[in-house]
């Protein structure tokens, strides 16, 4: 069998792409797992190579901003801020997919446009609202804001998914006397599990990766989320690359794992609401 030259070229180029694109991650990883004196003149020197977990332990127990606590905080916030918006958005999406009511199109348009809003546009009033409601510097405050900001794209995604479901099943249930809410809860939601998994995975990683909203709402040292701590650990004058890289690995490992495990759903969520079909 003859192998075409273009096939070989494609494979070589593909390999090159992979190498170049993984280099930044490898750089961070190499500094994270080695003593700082070994990498002072570049992590690509392997004359000495003593892998260690010391940097990770130091990042987790950092004296001023322990990352361990930050990971826990992020986990609590991201877990709650993925469940509430998915359920609330599913309710709204079902209304947009199945019911007709006045101003439906305008309401839908308004919600979709909110998807593109820069968060800076709400920063000052949001800060003031949070103070008035006594929610500043609380997890509940941050979770509520993440919920509200997650709703528009989840509504759009789920509404498009609900439109593809066969309406006959729902109509049959209605004939049997089921209420709209029962149909939604017992028939529509179970049929939508793949779509729900997609939005949940994406919403979790977005909340986990968020920095701006946390910066706005959370400020006391014990409550800071993981991304904030990475920034705080950076130091003003001296950059402690060893603990910082270890911290970066710990913070990125969580969304990377979510992606690795739920890859199919993750990419569907990403592409699904921007591409037809």
């Amino acid at each position, binding site marked *: 069998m003859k192998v075409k030259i273009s*096939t070989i070229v494609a494979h070589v180029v593909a*390999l090159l*792409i*992979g190498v170049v*694109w993984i280099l*930044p*991650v490898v*750089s*961070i990883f190499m500094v994270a797992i080695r003593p700082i004196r070994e990498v002072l003149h*570049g*992590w690509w020197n392997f004359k000495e190579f003593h892998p260690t977990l010391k940097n990770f332990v130091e990042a987790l127990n950092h004296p001023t901003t322990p990352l361990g606590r930050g990971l826990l905080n992020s986990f609590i916030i991201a877990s709650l801020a993925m469940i509430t918006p998915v359920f*609330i*958005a599913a*309710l*709204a999406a079902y*209304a947009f997919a199945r*019911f007709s009511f006045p101003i439906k199109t305008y*309401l*839908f*348009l*308004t919600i*979709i*446009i*909110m*998807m*593109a*809003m*820069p968060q*800076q*546009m*709400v*920063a*000052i*009033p949001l800060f003031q*609202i949070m103070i008035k409601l006594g929610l500043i510097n609380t997890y509940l405050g941050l979770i509520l804001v993440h919920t*509200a900001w997650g*709703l*528009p794209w989840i509504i759009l995604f789920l509404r498009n998914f609900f439109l593809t479901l066969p309406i006959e099943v729902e109509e049959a249930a209605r004939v049997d006397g089921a209420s709209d809410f029962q149909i*939604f809860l017992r028939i529509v939601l179970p049929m939508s599990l793949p779509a729900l998994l997609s939005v949940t995975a994406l919403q979790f990683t977005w909340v986990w*990766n968020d*920095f*701006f909203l946390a910066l706005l709402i959370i400020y006391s040292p014990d409550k800071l989320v993981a*991304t904030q701590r*990475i*920034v705080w650990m950076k130091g003003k004058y001296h950059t402690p690359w060893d603990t*910082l890289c270890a911290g*970066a690995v710990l*913070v*990125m490992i969580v*969304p*990377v794992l*979510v*992606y690795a495990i739920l*890859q199919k759903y993750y*990419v569907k969520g*990403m592409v699904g609401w*921007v*591409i*037809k*079909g």
Partner: protein
Amino acid sequence: MSQKNTTPLFFLAPAVILIIVFVIYPIVQTLWLSFLSPKGEFVGLRNYAQILRSKEIINSDRFPFECPPWGALIHNAVWIAIHLPLTVFLGLFFAIILKDVKGASIIKSIVFLGMVMPMVVGGLMAKFLFDKDIGIVNVVLRFIGLHSLADISWTYHPETALFATILIGVWMWTGFSMIVYSAALAAIPREYYEAAEIDGASSFRKFIHITLPLLKPATLVVVVMTVLWELKIFDIVYVATGGGPGEASMVLAILMYIKAFVAFNFSEAAVLATLLTLLTLLPAIWIAKTAVGRK
């Protein structure tokens, strides 16, 4: 029948209330703030005139012939001018190359890593990869003889800081454009190519006459989402440079944050936020139009 009419209300209420309280009401409030002086008097568009004339936004003394700072608005434009074509082109190129390659899914996952991880880590990478001592980019630059670029830490110098953040942005965002193009390529029916082959079309002609036209909707999606991302860029710059040195990598979103929460000048901050929102409105309306059009 009257009970039936309240059903949509019941389904919509939680979402609508949350969006009004935490999104729409604050937006209106910010818009209103942008017309007030710091003392709270209504001054119409005076804040806008003041901001648009300030060197922090557009620095025509320095742009384009001297190094940054060029002003935050220009910097956002530079982001778009460099980052948009690079990510669109690279994403398309990667998607095409990886279409028929063994192990492509692994390489796609690697390219997509930047989309998955927190942008604050991207900011760290900008500092780290372009460091004069431990940066891999600087080593490569030294190797090919570009010493003037290799011997400085990019994020500490006004000539390079902006470009370090933009290049990291390319690394992070190319995964998005690649994924969208891959999905679009996979959706093109094989028969189109087979028919063209029967007519004796070359690979190049097939690409120009079949692939490219069919990728138009995907390109539109990539361009719109990428421009939105570039306009709203915050985390990478905040961590890598904080907008510095001397505002040389400042962007609108960061300048707004500094005006609001460091300088406590709410009027100017509100103007900046509103300007940023106006810029995102065009892509936003496009998204809304396609979303409603889909039935």
